[in-house]
């Protein structure tokens, strides 16, 4: 799936539709439905960036659920102040930010809930919801002007 701006990502992010993983027999499924997050042991996952982690095939990171979404947030870099509000509030860790700089949206996992737009404090907002069918460049071209405060 495509990604807005210069957001980083691994080769494995959203590499397949959810449910398109290889099906194995009862003898090969993991005992107790225990799913490993990574293919290799990891020292401290919190300190390793997603693009550097060895996500396993059963990690939700490798599956795309983009088709669940009917409206999407579009991100406008020109207005954003990198306050990280959207990153904090996103319930699906689908705001990609590095070194406190907002990079874009993980469209493989964003469900289009609109929370990021709701919490964006800029005027106009740096994130707005558009129909999934609208092209992102088109959306950016139609961005609203700054609203004057009512006296």
């Amino acid at each position, binding site marked *: 799936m495509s990604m807005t701006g210069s957001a980083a990502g691994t080769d494995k992010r959203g590499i397949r539709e959810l449910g398109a993983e290889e099906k194995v027999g009862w003898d090969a499924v993991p005992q107790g439905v225990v799913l490993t997050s990574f293919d290799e*042991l990891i020292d401290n996952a919190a300190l390793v960036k997603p693009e550097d982690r060895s996500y396993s095939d059963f990690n939700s990171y490798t599956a795309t659920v983009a088709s669940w979404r009917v409206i999407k947030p579009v991100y406008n870099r020109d207005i954003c102040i990198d306050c990280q509000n959207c990153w904090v509030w996103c319930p699906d860790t689908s705001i990609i930010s590095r070194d406190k700089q907002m990079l874009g949206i993980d469209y493989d996992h964003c469900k289009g809930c609109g929370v990021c737009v709701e919490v964006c404090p800029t005027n106009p907002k740096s994130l707005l919801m558009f129909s999934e069918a609208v092209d992102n460049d088109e959306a950016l071209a139609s961005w609203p002007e700054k609203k004057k405060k009512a006296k």
Partner: protein
Amino acid sequence: MAEKFELNEVEVWDGNYAASQALRQAQIDVVAAYPITPSTPIVENYGAYQANGYVDGEFVMVESEHAAMSGCIGAAAAGGRVATATSSQGFALMAEVLYQASGMRLPIVLTVVNRALASPLNVRGDHSDMYLGRDSGWIQLDAYNSQEAYDLTLCAFKIGEHLDVRLPVMVHQDGFTTSHKAQNVRPLTDEVAYNFIGDYVPVDDMLDFTRPVTHGAQTEEDWHYEHKAKQHKALMDSRSVIDQVFAEFKELTGREYKRVESYMMEDAEVAMVLLGSSVETAVLAAKQLREETGLKVGIVSPRCFRPFPYDLIRDELDREGLKAVVCMDKSAPGGAMGTLFNEVSAAAYTTKARPIISNYIYGLGGRDFSIDEAKRIMNEQKAHADAGYITTNIQQFSGVRGPKLGFFETRRG
């Protein structure tokens, strides 16, 4: 380090105390529990051991049995040795999470003191809670007295935690008749008991941060079936591990347990199949009848209720001289034949001998099952054997007041 608990070679313990001592000796990491009659003393005793420094693990008081088993599941997934106790309504409230524990392959030990299910509310012992657990994917062992409640609780940890098994295990005993009856019990020393069980070996534990894992994943029609098939195979295959653990226990203590216990079956013409403390009643009745009338009665009991021992039940019932078998179910059957009847019949149907089999419901809500009543039912089997068919209804009720109650008639004979 826990305080040393002094034990005598022979102690006078009721079933509850025996079970709680086995839990103490297992050095459990987490017990999450919500006490309920008649298993309350298991939890109460364990709480006292903890408060008085006899156990190092955590004791978590929760708000319900659902929470108790949920807490056990969380602690077991985290990588600890875990156990709890319950009965009846509490067992019913746990039912949802029992399936989680087995599906997640967490070797939790649950000591169940069997008690009737409401309504009408009743605190006495019958097997309706034990039967409620029969499809939950747990291993179910059944103790007939205090010594067995102690022994089987120790075995339960070793069986469930075996790396080829990794399934939760229930150890059942009968409410009041076993749980509150003080008997001589020969405990092992703490060291011997613990060494028999061994150190807990965590599998896929959540506290291993170098290998993060997801427990409790959702699966739909494309994966669920394979996982349930694998789980069922593990339960079926646990039979050999149960046999092996029982053999090791015999080696250690001289006390022998089998997945199917049988008494005087070698030359039996008629047999009674039943569970729990009633087995001891039935054995006494059979011995008396053999002396008094010469009727050759044998007793069969599935010590291991799940996985159901079709193999060994079949071995016991495939005897040329055996003509009639009665299966005794101590649980309201809810519009069917009793569970033991159904399963024993299924096992016996594929034998060469194919004895005729009938069903009795008995002892509901703690109604007494006497030696005389056992003998009456055994004599009735002799009548079936002589006639060559079931001369009564196939399902009857023992010890209930009112007009005779029975259902279905045989088409054989």
